[in-house]
């Protein structure tokens, strides 16, 4: 079941919730040649987690979440390449602060609307960001991308190595912190009120909940995480491309989250994992069929498996348990 968090659910961490972390650690030791891909997957998990918080729990349908991801990526990149700030934690902090500030500003504006207008505003804001990044070539490198990103060792101890070991562990730690915070938030009374807004905003108004401010707060928090994810992407790739802000990348993120399952935390883990591994195996050989497949997948998931992979797994488990 799609759990509703808050008072109804037991906030203690159950044993299956440790499985992703065990798998991630096992991957580190068993598949050393795939650590670059692994770091990418971890980053997109964090990004998908931030989207899940506002889309799955608060019910804000947005097409513009890549704005905060891209902003974080560019802030970290510009600091590293232009301003000479090479400390990775400072860059990450700046990316988070930029995401938070921009998220609060835009959230305070767009969350006054809903439905199509909200969707349109998120799209327009991302388009403005893309346009700025495209035109401000002195700062962002424009369509050529931002190269020359220099990253100092973490805490002066761990250098980003060519095999991606440091990057993988670094991203894993960031994801773990993000996961812990998001989980705390969802299982708190605050999280329950978000689910309430998703299910029936009018009733939440009626019982006196400050709906608008709750949404602005969660939106800001989600934008902060997205900014961190963007910063991580810059640091592991040591490059920023214009496509971090594109509509396609926002669409791809949605696909990953939907594939895993919306509004259930771990959908944000399963989705990017399956999607990016499949992309790594298939996209280069069959680029046309790849996009066709994504589209088909979306249609099939919407039509037949609304809960994504985890929803299907839930249903199978339920059927297995109820067998005579």
């Amino acid at each position, binding site marked *: 079941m799609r759990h509703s968090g808050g008072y109804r659910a037991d906030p203690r961490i159950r044993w299956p919730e440790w499985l992703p972390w065990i798998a991630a650690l096992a991957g580190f030791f068993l598949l050393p040649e795939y650590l670059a891909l692994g770091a990418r997957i971890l980053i997109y998990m964090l990004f998908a987690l931030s989207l899940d918080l506002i889309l799955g729990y608060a019910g804000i349908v947005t097409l513009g979440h890549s704005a905060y991801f891209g902003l974080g990526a560019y802030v970290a990149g510009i600091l590293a390449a232009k301003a000479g700030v090479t400390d990775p934690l400072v860059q990450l902090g700046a990316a988070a602060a930029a995401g938070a500030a921009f998220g609060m500003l835009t959230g305070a504006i767009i969350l006054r609307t809903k439905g199509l207008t909200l969707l349109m505003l998120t*799209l327009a804001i991302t*388009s*403005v960001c893309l*346009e700025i990044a495209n035109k401000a070539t002195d700062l962002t490198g424009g369509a050529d991308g931002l190269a020359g990103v220099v990253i100092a060792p973490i805490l002066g101890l761990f250098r980003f190595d060519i095999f991606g070991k440091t990057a993988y562990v670094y991203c894993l730690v960031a994801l773990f912190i993000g996961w812990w915070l998001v989980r705390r938030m969802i299982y708190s009374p605050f999280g329950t009120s978000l689910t309430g807004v998703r299910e029936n905003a009018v009733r939440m108004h009626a019982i006196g909940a400050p709906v608008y401010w709750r949404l602005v707060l969660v939106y800001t928090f989600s934008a902060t995480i997205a900014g961190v994810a963007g910063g991580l992407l810059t640091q592991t790739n040591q490059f920023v491309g214009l496509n971090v802000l594109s*509509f396609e990348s926002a669409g791809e993120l*949605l696909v990953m989250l939907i594939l895993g399952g919306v509004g259930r935390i771990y959908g944000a883990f399963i989705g990017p994992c399956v999607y990016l591994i499949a992309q790594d195996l298939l996209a280069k050989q069959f680029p046309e069929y790849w*996009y*066709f497949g994504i589209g088909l997948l979306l249609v099939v998931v*919407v039509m037949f498996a609304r809960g994504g992979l985890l929803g299907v797994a839930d249903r199978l488990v339920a059927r297995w348990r109820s067998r005579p």
Partner: protein
Amino acid sequence: MEAFLSSAVSVAFHGIAFGMILYVISVGLSVTMGLMGFVNLAHGVFAMAGGYVLTSSISRFGVPFPLALAFAFIAVAAGSVILERLLYSRLYGAGDLAQVLLTIGLIFIAVAVARMIFGTMQQPVILPDYLKGQILLLGRDFPAYRVFLIVFSAAMVALLWLGVERTLWGAMVRAAVDNRSMAQSVGINTRRLFTLTFALGSGLAGLGGALGAEIIAIQPTYPFENLVYFLIVVSVGGLGSLRGPFAAALLIGIADTACKYWLPQYGVFLIYVATIAVLLWRPAGLFGRRA
């Protein structure tokens, strides 16, 4: 001064042509969203399909231009009925997210299919001789095709408005937009009405895509690249209205052309900022009915 006047006339002319195309494409989207509340992000797919039908039926099969236009309308309208029956109709009232996802999925599929069949190159438009060259109007030269485009679109718009304001079908559509359950309870078959209206709107999008193939390049990324424009027209104009999107389309057409002409470095930036400002000022659009 004369130079400025001449460029202003030119900008206004091209802007109106662009705005007309935007309106013919987007009006169906406004009606679908107003009628059923369906967030159809894949509307650009229909316009792209119309463009491909026109360009390929002319260049591959030598179909005359007027016939190719009609064919674009009919083919897209027929195709949209199949999609509506198979997919869209199952998601009426299913919530924004499901509709957004379904239609994004359709965009991905359409982009891939277009790329497989036609390649990534932009499709050239072969115009008949009588639409080439210039027309002399009030002492200035205007490209004949754009003049045709404006006049033809204006005729289509007049026909559409007449249909909605004066016919029984139009009365039923207006009733259903205003209050769907009431319309149902006085005996209007809203499902069939919607299928018909959806087909008409998609057909118009196909026609608009075909007409505007010279202005909005026909290539596989069409539905992605122009989505924002169509959505801006609809959301700024106001859902479910006919006149709102018309004014919005003309405004955007002229503003976009003017920005590209006089302030090329800001590109579409100003359009987006203006859209955000308008939507904050009036969230239901300039001419929207519901706040």
